């Protein structure tokens, strides 16, 4: 059941990304990108990251894509001539993308079953996945006791407190920078 839902959302995500690249009009690209983001949010929920699924909808779809839409409307991009590159560049782009895809498909091999088989072959190590990945069982336990929000928030405000504060400075800098850049006269 979970797998069927995953594959449906995965197909929608790939379709949305492909159409985002292929559509001529910027607004169409944006709406297809929105489809991709929403199906990725659903996939995040399936992968036990409910908090990030919600954040994906709020931050990406609610903030970033709306910002894109504002700029597309503001500049009236669709009225301008839009075309892709020449035939040679197109072929090169598709070739580089395909090559990258082949390379990244090596990630397929990183599956727990293969890891379990490797562990079973080595006699000194247990073939138990929970022993091979102590973080995973600790993670599941934390989620079971505190819920996903607590399990994510506790390390964020303890172990990763300094990066979290630096992030707030980054957002402030981006805010000021965007205003300084976009305003005609300060």
């Amino acid at each position, binding site marked *: 059941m979970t797998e069927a839902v995953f594959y449906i959302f995965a197909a929608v995500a790939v379709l949305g990304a492909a159409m985002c690249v292929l559509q001529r009009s910027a607004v169409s690209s944006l709406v297809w990108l929105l489809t991709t983001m929403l199906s990725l949010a659903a996939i995040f929920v399936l992968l036990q990251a409910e908090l990030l699924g919600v954040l994906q909808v709020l931050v990406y779809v609610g903030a970033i894509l709306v910002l894109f839409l504002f700029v597309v409307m503001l500049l009236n991009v669709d009225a301008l001539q839009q075309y892709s590159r020449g035939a040679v560049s197109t072929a090169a782009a598709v070739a580089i993308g395909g090559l990258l895809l082949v390379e990244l*498909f090596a990630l*397929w091999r990183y599956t727990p079953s293969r890891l379990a088989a490797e562990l079973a072959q080595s006699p000194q190590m247990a073939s138990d996945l929970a022993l091979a990945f102590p973080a995973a069982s600790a993670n599941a336990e934390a989620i079971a006791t505190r819920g996903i929000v607590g399990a994510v928030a506790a390390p964020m405000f303890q172990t990763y407190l300094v990066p979290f504060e630096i992030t707030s400075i980054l957002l402030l800098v981006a805010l000021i920078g965007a205003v300084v850049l976009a305003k005609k006269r300060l």
Partner: protein
Amino acid sequence: MPPDLLGPALALSAVLFSIGTAGVLLRRSSIVLFMCIEIMLNAVNLAFIALAQLHGVAGQIMVFFVMTVAAAEAAVGLAIILVVFRHKQSVDLQHVNLLRG
């Protein structure tokens, strides 16, 4: 804990990242190029979340930081596109050639 979806999730991440890369190379409109970069960032986020099932919740925290940086990047990048448009009356990257010798 069912990490059965790990392989398919990583494959989906690879496909989305490749589509994003091809889009960056293919398109000339700087706004669509930015959208393709967002696709690539989302593909990486998906890989982080899939692997967080095995390696603990730190992967999910990393995704949180990636989202924050993406928001900051979109704000500044779109402001830059706005300035270039004001200067050139175009978002076509082919027309942005001030640094060409």
